[in-house]
């Protein structure tokens, strides 16, 4: 049972309507409250609740890739009995911000982000050095989707 079923209409409304376009005014939660037919306090409380139950990863800015730095999607193929050890080595780098195990020959997929291309490349070389595994470097060449957030179906 996911927490989705326990959310209030206000909490769902925040997720449906405010994954983008948070009002850029001095009291954004009051402006949102007006749109959603609630009070400023209720909106803030709803956001606090969403944060507490883990539904809200964060409330903030999504930056456009490659505008203020460089990032890449990278993958390694780790033997099954080395996944934990290899993941620990990779996660040890503060510039690694996502890392997923996936069911494929390439079974560890992670994002490395840095101030520039050279520093990201250096991290990948360091990971190869410390794991002895070849890293696939798959930087974005073109982005296609219009990022409006994630459409949640509640039913």
């Amino acid at each position: 049972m996911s927490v989705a079923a326990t959310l209030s209409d206000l909490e769902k409304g925040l997720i449906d309507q405010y994954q983008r376009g948070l009002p850029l005014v001095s009291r954004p939660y009051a402006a949102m409250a007006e749109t959603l037919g609630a009070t400023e306090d209720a909106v803030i409380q709803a956001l606090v609740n969403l944060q507490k139950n883990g539904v809200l990863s964060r409330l903030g800015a999504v930056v456009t890739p490659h505008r203020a730095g460089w990032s890449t999607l990278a993958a390694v193929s780790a033997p099954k009995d080395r996944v934990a050890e290899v993941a620990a080595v990779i996660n040890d780098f503060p510039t690694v911000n996502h890392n997923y195990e996936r069911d494929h020959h390439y079974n560890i997929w992670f994002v490395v982000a840095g101030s520039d291309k050279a520093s990201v490349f250096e991290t990948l070389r360091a990971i190869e050095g410390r794991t002895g595994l070849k890293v696939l470097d798959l930087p974005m060449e073109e982005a296609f989707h219009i990022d409006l957030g994630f459409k949640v179906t509640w039913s």
Partner: protein
Amino acid sequence: MILDDTDRQIVRATQEGLPLDPQPYHRVAEALNLDPADVMTRVRRMLDGGAIRRIGVIPNHYALGYTFNGMTVWDVDDARVSELGAKVGALDFVSHCYHRPRHLPLWRYNLFAMVHGRSKDAVERQVERIAELLGDEAHDHRILYSTRILKKTGLRIKETG
């Protein structure tokens, strides 16, 4: 657009999480020793200039029950990847869609599309729709389901990509 150090500080402060305080931009301004109006003007400029894609609620798919996360990867002609990527990226259930390089012979897939579902079936139905859309243009594809989150933190600008 060029971001200066102040812009970068603001982005870092706002993407780590806007304070849940009635005047969040004022709190950010205080923390950075800036004028609140200046903070909001700079954020507006970065939004308009495209450096910030959006500001808002960033939900955790897993917590909402979308526990099946499929990275679908497709092998399409390089000459047509932009045109085909635009079609796939326009599907409302695709959360991210990118052209990435091949690494032959190790990696043949050049188009990536992320899909999410509450069940494996739901993901597979979405993948079928992408497959129908691409038709013969897709020479091969795979779905790489995530089996474990090994690390997940918000993107920070000093590390931004």
